[in-house]
């Protein structure tokens, strides 16, 4: 049902669309291969929820008088594929709006690409490097926090409430953990905390026994800036290695995907505190509960929405709202649509979302703790919320000790 799919007759690229056009094609990028292959399913689930609100589905909907079409391209999480697929969506399919991508590597590339096609509007999916909204791309919007913002409030909490004075850092060696750990430790250090060692491990490290053996005895807690599989291996081995330090999780370390794995990681994971855009499992507000319920109806949904589904939803819904507000007017370089996007002030399932001058969202952030739920299954508990978290200006690099020291 997607007319954009048959290359020959699809609309010409966005900027050339006649004013008052009442058809908008959105190109969606999400990961369909590699470690984050489930990204596409989560993206579709999120989009499905948002579209259902307008009586549509993942392929399209009528929003007011505007017909919205969706076209999907899967990537493998690398910048090369993201670039190729974005170009295909923009230049071949002729989409008016780009939505996505999933990973940070892709995100940085997509921003660069956005700079070269000013007539297309880009709405970020879940990519969270700090730098993305600092590149000055007027056509690029992000409706969730960057990965440094995800740790907003956690540094203070760890120091003051938990009383951790010294924290050891184990993180993957690439841009996402730089920002994430940077965000955490800059707050933690500012509060008076101390970093007593960093271990930057290559992505894909499976054997953490030796890393774990490095943790100094006098450390109060361990920051774990690992994601997905690496987090799972770390936690599993933390159990067999009998690690006895509390953990501070990077935003994706104890995501549902890690907790829902089969390995028995309870002993290590319980008590871990973490920060991020996704609230704990006990969180309950009407909007959140509705979202979770709607999400669960989508095909291929996980038991609860992953961070990717939450972020894709929180980003896609404002896009639809802006289309509605601007009545699908794409004239004048999509000025009306962009104005509407910038003006977003939305009570999302995870709190109020407004935009700053860099088209970067100002959001609420959640602090959670891993607890053992009924029947021993792991779950998360909300422990604190930081409201109105704004983006900083520092793009973090790999650092030793406290960031910037």
């Amino acid at each position: 049902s997607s007319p954009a799919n048959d290359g020959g007759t699809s609309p010409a690229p966005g900027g050339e669309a006649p004013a008052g056009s009442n058809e908008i094609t959105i190109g969606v990028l999400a990961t369909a291969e590699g470690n984050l292959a489930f990204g596409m399913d989560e993206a579709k689930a999120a989009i499905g929820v948002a579209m259902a609100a307008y009586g549509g589905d993942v392929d399209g909907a009528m929003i007011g008088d505007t017909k919205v079409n969706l076209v999907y391209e899967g990537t493998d999480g690398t910048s090369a594929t993201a670039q190729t697929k974005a170009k295909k969506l923009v230049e071949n399919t002729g989409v008016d709006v780009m939505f996505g991508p999933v990973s940070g590597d892709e995100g940085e590339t997509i921003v660069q690409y956005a700079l070269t096609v000013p007539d297309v509007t880009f709405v970020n999916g879940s990519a969270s490097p700090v730098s993305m909204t600092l590149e000055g791309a007027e056509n690029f919007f992000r409706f969730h926090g960057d990965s440094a913002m995800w740790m907003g409030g956690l540094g203070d909490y760890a120091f003051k409430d938990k009383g951790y004075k010294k924290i050891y850092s184990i993180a993957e060696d690439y841009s996402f953990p730089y920002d994430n750990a940077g965000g955490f430790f800059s707050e933690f250090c500012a509060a008076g905390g101390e970093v007593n060692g960093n271990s930057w491990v290559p992505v894909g490290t499976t054997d953490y026994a030796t890393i774990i053996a490095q943790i100094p005895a006098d450390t109060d807690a361990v920051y774990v800036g690992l994601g997905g599989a690496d987090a799972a291996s770390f936690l599993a081995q933390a159990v067999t290695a009998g690690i006895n330090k509390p953990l501070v999780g990077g935003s994706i370390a104890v995501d549902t995907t890690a907790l829902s794995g089969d390995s028995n990681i309870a002993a290590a994971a319980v008590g871990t505190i973490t920060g991020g855009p996704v609230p704990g499992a006990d969180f309950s507000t009407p909007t959140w509960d509705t979202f979770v319920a709607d999400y669960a109806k989508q095909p291929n949904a996980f038991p609860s929405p992953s961070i990717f589904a939450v972020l894709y939803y929180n980003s896609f819904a404002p896009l639809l709202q802006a289309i509605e507000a601007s009545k699908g007017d794409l004239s004048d370089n999509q000025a009306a649509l962009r104005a509407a996007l910038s003006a977003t002030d939305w009570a999302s399932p995870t709190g109020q979302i407004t935009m700053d001058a860099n088209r970067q969202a100002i959001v609420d952030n959640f602090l959670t703790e891993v607890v053992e739920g009924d029947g021993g299954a792991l779950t998360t508990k909300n422990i604190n919320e930081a409201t109105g978290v704004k983006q900083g200006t520092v793009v973090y690099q790999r650092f030793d000790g406290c960031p910037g020291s």
Partner: protein
Amino acid sequence: MTRLATPTRSEKSRGWLRPGLIIGLIVLALAIAFPHLVDRPKFWIPNIGIKSLWLGIVAMSLVFLNRYVGLLSLAQMTIAGMSAYGVAYATVTLGLSPWVSIVFGLMIGTLAGYLVALVAARTKAIYFLMLTLALGQVFYSWAAQAVDVTNASRGLYPVPRPDLGVMNLADLNSFYYFALAAAVLCYLLCRYVATSSFGLALQGIRDSPERMSALGYNVNRYRVGAITFASFIASIGGVIVVFDRNQVDPSVVNLNATLDILIVAVIGGIGSLLGVFAGGVVLSLLLNFSQDFTDRYMTLTGLVFIAVLLFAPAGLAGIGKQVQGVKDRVLRKKKSAPVLEPVQEPPTKPSEEELTTEGTQR
């Protein structure tokens, strides 16, 4: 050992005038007209056209080494990546002018190839393959970690397409013709080298290095020369890569990228210097369009790949000859006269299959 297609009879004395020339010219004409034939040039030119060209150029360097030197290198994309990093580093970090950056990139790639050659020239067949694979992984891991030089996983950007004076690459058509010219140049260079006495000597070394030394040839020097030359060709591909992507990051040289080159070479025909471009077109089409038919891009690529290997071992480039061969065989069966095509496989070692099917039944 390390050769795929049955090669090459003699290439002497036939010079440039071969039956393939006409087909080659037609293809070239099509390639020149390509930007004007497609309906969405901004998509087709970079995503299919330019991508096929650089995939082809890098794969050509692999084919050259395999066919004339008997070495299968998995480091060709790595070399191209080094050249791309070189251009990007010169542009982004050092702020050098485009021409200088290009020369810098080419030098980095070629020099790296030379150093690889010094280590690898002594190793043979499988070891060479593994050594180049390992070198590729070393560079990939390093590029993904060395924040100071490569900016780690973020990579170096932006590398805009420059105005070279003679040609403004910022214009997509110009960039395409730039890449096409580079491809033609690479092909002519490879052919020229292959038909020279040097090229013949390389083939001699491929078949019997001991004999070559006994004849007074410095085998190592020839091998190093050939690998360095192939690295230069790959480096040219790398320059196009960096301008095509406007950036360079570790994904340019990861394992998938390495395998892509192998796939291109095989689909095109690993014995053919020109077939690589057909391989490049097939792969870039698969990459861009397979998702319109299936979610399983990799499975599709794998199936195409295996099908080529099983049924058209000489790749797309060899299909013409294969059809001819089948025709002859049919004719032969009909007439039952002993008009036979030369056996395809080296006749010293026919497989058991051939023996049982072709042997006489009584």
